């Protein structure tokens, strides 16, 4: 169920959404974009596949608004819409993905960027020598942007052998959540879509999120590269106390 606060003409907009994946890198990256560009919340999405979650506004400490498991934000200037997910999946997200793909079609959203990550140990020897970032684009997007990817020297996600005995290969994003399933749905619906992913390991994944945001910004050009803003992303206030409270005074 999607509820928008107001009707917004989203035709021609770019949608970014994270897939709940290793180290929550996609979600952290969307948080950075929302906080840096000051996106405004325009709606919510409720789906029982996610654990219900509420908290105060993650981007403005003076706001009385709340955040929930899935919120929708918009930036009219940049023609950008973002869906942020803050909760893990406990069921197959079939209804959620259908709701999102129907929303994309109904609102004539022109491009979808799915941000995700994959387990670092999945990289093979040959991949260790390259940047730990890959992309996977639908045919409709490649028709218009193949040269851009080439100019950026981006590396497409390499297929992996299914087993050691046959020559069969398949595209896999191990630890990438629903990214590939949504990609396949959008590919079928002929919606231009790109999955941008980073290989990483679990830990403090803020550096991974910054790297992924910098990387996809080369393509999306959301944050002005001429300004000093690049590399100086605004951290949302929800990132405070990431490693817990300050130690109690009593211990000193």
């Amino acid at each position, binding site marked *: *169920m999607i*509820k928008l606060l107001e009707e917004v003409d989203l035709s021609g907009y770019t949608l970014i959404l994270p897939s*709940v*994946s*290793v*180290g*929550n890198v996609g*979600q952290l990256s969307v948080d950075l974009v929302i906080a840096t560009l000051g996106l405004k919340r325009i709606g*919510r999405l*409720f*789906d*029982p*596949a*996610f*654990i*219900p*979650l*509420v*908290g*105060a*506004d*993650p981007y403005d*400490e003076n706001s*009385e*608004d*709340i955040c*929930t*498991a899935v919120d929708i934000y918009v930036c009219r200037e940049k023609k950008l819409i973002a869906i942020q997910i*803050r*909760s*893990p*999946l*406990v*069921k*197959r997200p079939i209804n959620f993905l259908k709701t999102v793909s129907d929303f994309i079609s109904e609102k004539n959203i022109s491009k979808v960027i799915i941000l995700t990550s994959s*387990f670092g*140990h999945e990289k093979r020897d040959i991949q260790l020598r390259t940047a730990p970032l890959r992309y996977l684009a639908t045919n409709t997007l490649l028709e218009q942007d193949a040269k851009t990817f080439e100019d950026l020297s981006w590396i497409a996600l390499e297929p992996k052998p299914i087993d050691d005995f046959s020559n069969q290969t398949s595209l896999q994003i191990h*630890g*990438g*959540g*629903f990214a590939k399933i949504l990609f396949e749905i959008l590919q079928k619906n002929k919606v231009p879509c790109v999955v941008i992913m980073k290989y990483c*390991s*679990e830990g403090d994944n803020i550096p991974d999120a910054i790297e992924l945001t910098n990387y996809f910004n080369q393509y999306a050009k959301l944050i002005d590269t001429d300004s000093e803003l690049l590399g100086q992303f605004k951290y949302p*206030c*929800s*990132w*405070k*106390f*990431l490693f*817990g*409270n*300050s130690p109690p005074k009593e211990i000193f």
Partner: protein
Amino acid sequence: MVSYFGEVVHPSSRAFWNDDDDDEAFHCHEDNLGFSINWTNEEPVTIKKFILIEGQIVAEFTLSCVLKDADIVGTIDNKSEKPIAKIYKIDDVYICVIDSNSELTEAGELTKTLSHLLSKIEKLYAITADHLSNLKSTEEIDSESTLKLLCSSKAAKENNFKDCILNQPNIVTGLSAGVLTYADIQDIFCIIYILYTDTFDLDSKNASPLTKLFSTLLEKPIPQFKTSGPCFFNKGNLYM
């Protein structure tokens, strides 16, 4: 001794509720958990005030201090024999106590089941609890417990809660969070209260915000408030 000596153990991620995000892992949770609301008499057409109680210490407090002689007017059932929640009625107020053994993974589906009922409610409240050590804040808390809240935009318009709003990055999960999400989407008045206590038991001091809250919500003093019973700390300190 570890049983996986010599084996390749793939790391898991905090991002996934299950160990992995593989398709098979999602199969363990059924899509339809079969929740239903069953009323002893007729289902109410409108509900002026509905209070949802979630969490063991708040549930025990409510059952022993607020609902001692209240009638059960409905239950929320699933495939198991025991109801997942019981709905009581005091005057015009409906109080729903969620079983403390209910699983967090069921909260989304349970919210969906309750959605029909939620749309009939004028004022919806939820009360839950957590340990004070889980409250991330720069604020120094001297008292044994503190009550924080989060509310829907409709409730925020009607009240000024600024001082007691739960600050970022604290979050609430579970059915309370589910009903607040649904209420905010449907523009229903909803406030959820979170009692942060310094112990896992209640005593007369750290339960005082709860007694005040119930007196306000029920618009009368709590009739049988005693600091004895299973939900209160009543052991001596002399011997273990």
